[in-house]
């Protein structure tokens, strides 16, 4: 071997409001109580994971004008949970999705800088963007953002936040009790930003945090999204969990870095992945089939088809054949507040393809959804899963994975107990944390490296 083995990055996504979560399992716990989050985070930290990830929602999902009730509904506030988790962990990175459309840069920058201080340098921001008026109905601005402006606002939002983070160099606080100089620089935090989306100026009031800025994550697969990640992100969440697709995505995104003067290792590619473990590969495969049936009830299958057909399909039998009518193509969608809807760009073609698939395989509606929907990424014995993950990373299909268990909060424990030790034995995953910040775990440079921060106040680790 000429090339040294790549080190795998692992993270855990607290499963949220989607049909991967098997809430009906007797082992499933609360999705709201802090004890669930604390258990999940402690397991991830015990396994030496890089970070924990929380998604966000700002409007309950609806279908056909009614609140969607078949998946987990409801979740706590991202920032507040992450701050509390900083108290029950010491090293684990704390990554939260925060929408750039329904927030303002000054407030979000304050919250991330505060979280970074309060966690001793473990915060990360998954920048997402939204344009829909549906979510906007919960906010002062209302529904307002033209779709074509979503990335321009996101980019300017992130750039503005960086200006705020950078408005403190890190050496301004002297706090000399003898001479009475608290601030070395009366202008600490001064900023001016004049742009298309934000015209703000003044003084940022959170001193520079341990990481300087939070680590920046980006999720989104469009060309614009890939470009945004290549220009501005430290890591990208992708959804390509097959080897070939993963390699294609990996190459495409990493090749975009050079034009922004960035190296290959300055952007990590981390697909979301699910897993089902068994004592043997066969046992795992059986369990995986059972999990899929739990995830896709008859009612869930019909609702899933409605994403594509965009019409009420409640009269159909989920154990029967697919609807013989075509989807309704319309700007108005029966399903609102769901990211998946955007995945189906040509619903009529998809419906035709699905009908053909179902006829050829003699699948019912439910069979089709089970067989075409999100499959478990890694299914097998701990040895098989460890090997597959390692092969994937060494073949440059990703730099690691964000694991999404189907049971909350205990679903991560078997992975921590059985798969992680095998990866550690192979020398491809850390046996212990080497640093204290999330940038340390991810191998990312500190934005302040090389600048004078020697007089910055000591930082608490926890």
């Amino acid at each position: 071997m000429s090339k040294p083995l790549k080190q795998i990055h692992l993270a855990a996504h607290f499963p949220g409001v989607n049909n991967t979560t098997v809430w009906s399992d007797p082992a499933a716990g609360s999705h709201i109580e802090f004890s669930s989050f604390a258990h999940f985070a402690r397991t991830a930290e015990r396994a030496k994971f890089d970070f924990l990830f929380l998604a966000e929602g700002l409007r309950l999902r609806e279908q056909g004008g009614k609140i969607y009730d078949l998946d987990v509904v409801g979740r706590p506030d991202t920032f507040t949970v992450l701050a509390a988790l900083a108290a029950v962990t010491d090293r684990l990175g704390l990554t939260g999705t925060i929408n750039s459309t329904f927030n303002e840069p000054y407030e979000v920058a304050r919250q991330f800088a505060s979280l970074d201080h309060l966690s001793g340098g473990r915060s990360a921001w998954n920048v997402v963007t939204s344009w829909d008026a549906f979510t906007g109905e919960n906010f002062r601005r209302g529904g307002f953002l033209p779709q074509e402006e979503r990335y321009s606002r996101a980019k300017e939002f992130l750039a503005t936040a960086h200006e705020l983070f950078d408005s403190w160099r890190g050496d301004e606080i002297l706090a000399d009790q003898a001479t009475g100089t608290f601030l070395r620089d009366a202008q600490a935090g001064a900023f001016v930003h004049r742009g298309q989306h934000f015209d703000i100026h003044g003084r940022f009031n959170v001193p520079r945090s341990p990481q300087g800025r939070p680590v920046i994550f980006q999720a989104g697969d469009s060309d614009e999204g890939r470009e945004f990640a290549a220009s501005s992100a430290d890591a990208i969440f992708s959804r390509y969990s097959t080897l070939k697709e993963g390699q294609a995505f990996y190459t495409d995104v990493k090749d975009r870095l050079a034009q922004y003067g960035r190296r290959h290792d300055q952007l990590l590619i981390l697909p979301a992945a699910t897993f089902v473990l068994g004592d043997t590969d066969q046992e795992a495969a059986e369990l995986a089939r059972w999990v899929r049936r739990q995830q896709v009830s008859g009612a869930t299958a019909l609702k899933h088809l409605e994403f594509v057909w965009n019409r009420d399909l409640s009269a159909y039998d989920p154990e029967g054949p697919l609807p013989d009518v075509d989807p309704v193509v319309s700007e108005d969608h029966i399903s609102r507040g769901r990211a998946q809807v955007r995945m189906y760009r040509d619903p009529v073609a998809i419906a035709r393809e699905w009908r053909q698939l179902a006829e050829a395989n003699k699948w019912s509606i439910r069979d089709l959804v089970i067989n075409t929907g999100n499959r478990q990424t890694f299914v097998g014995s701990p040895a098989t899963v460890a090997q597959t993950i390692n092969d994937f990373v060494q073949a440059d299909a990703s730099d690691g994975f964000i694991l999404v268990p189907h049971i909350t909060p205990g679903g991560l424990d078997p992975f921590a107990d059985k798969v992680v030790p095998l990866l550690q034995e192979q020398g491809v995953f850390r046996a212990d944390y080497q640093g204290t910040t999330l940038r340390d775990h991810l191998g990312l440079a500190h934005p302040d490296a090389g600048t004078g921060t020697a007089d910055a106040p000591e930082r608490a680790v926890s």
Partner: protein
Amino acid sequence: MSSTPASHLHLAVALDGTGWHPASWREPVARPRDLFTAGYWADLVAEAERGLLDLVTLEDGLGPQSSHFLDPDDRTDRIRGRLDAVLVASRVAPLTRHIGLVPTVVSTHTEPFHISKAIATLDYVSTGRAGLRVQVSGRPNEAAHFGRRTIRRIEAYDSPAAQDVITELFDEAADYVEVVRRLWDSWEDDAEIRDTATGRFVDRDKLHYIDFEGRHFSVKGPSITPRPPQGQPLVTALAHQPVGYQLVARQADIGYVTPRDADQARALVAEIRAGQQAAGRAGDTLHVFGDLVVFLDDSRAQAEARRDRLDALAGEPYTSDARIFTGTATQLADVLEELATGGLTGFRLRPAVAGHDLPRISRDLVPELQRRGRFRDAYEADTLRGLLGLARPANRYAASVA
């Protein structure tokens, strides 16, 4: 429910930086270099909990602290910068068991939807000990940090134009609290059903759109966060003038006021009670706490000497909106008992030097009040509502359906 005897007073402590005196950071106990660490705040809140206090409030603002009321300054001899108060409260919550955590929230520039779920979540992470202190901002520089509205400059406080601005900010704050409260109720307590037979996780008939329409914003709802453990976390506000007393009367569970003496306390309490009645809330428990800045030492002379020393370091005498007390814990207990005759049900003490005066509150004042039968000997409840004798409220939407 609380078993607090009526004779007991409630005690809160207001945490801000290294204390309320601007030179407090120069005291040896002050730890100014730790201000931006979690450990600093955890230690202060643990000290307050050691004293069995009802709650701590955490100051905040959407701009740097200033020695001017409306404008920023360029001083380098005072603390500048602070962490987001909601996140500080949340960071401390898992490290404490009983004490209430009440961060400041600025209603003028933030979103009620975000704050509603943040405080609901603080209530979950603290298992029922969350509240908020709502505050308006009339500072032009803070408006410029957001850039989406300008606030007419307040020149002279008593001018009609200034009163219009202030009234508008407080009206907006009242709407804001109304939205936050409706969102807390937008899930009925038993909305999560996990009905495996029908595959339904929630009973959506128990989730409610709040459909709030006001002058400054409209909010559809429901919340994304289920109803918090207390049902309604505590809403608190500091008030110095009639529009503030009306906000307290209409929307708060605790109002903080700044009376000089028992007579003034009596007048303020009467005004708030009248407003409470007018708002149709006569049956609700509404606490009115007196705010005092405290310098506590073994003798009054020592306390005064300390205040003089800090004033000299600050370069000017310390003044405050609240009465400033200098003396011993016994003397402070006398003052609190006297003020309580004006109808105050508790006090929010602002330690002049957090590292000095907070331990004096928890270790000297509290035992003195206990000796007098005016303060609890142990935490009698697990929730902040419980400590304050407030019942868990019924859900407004459930009640309207029934």
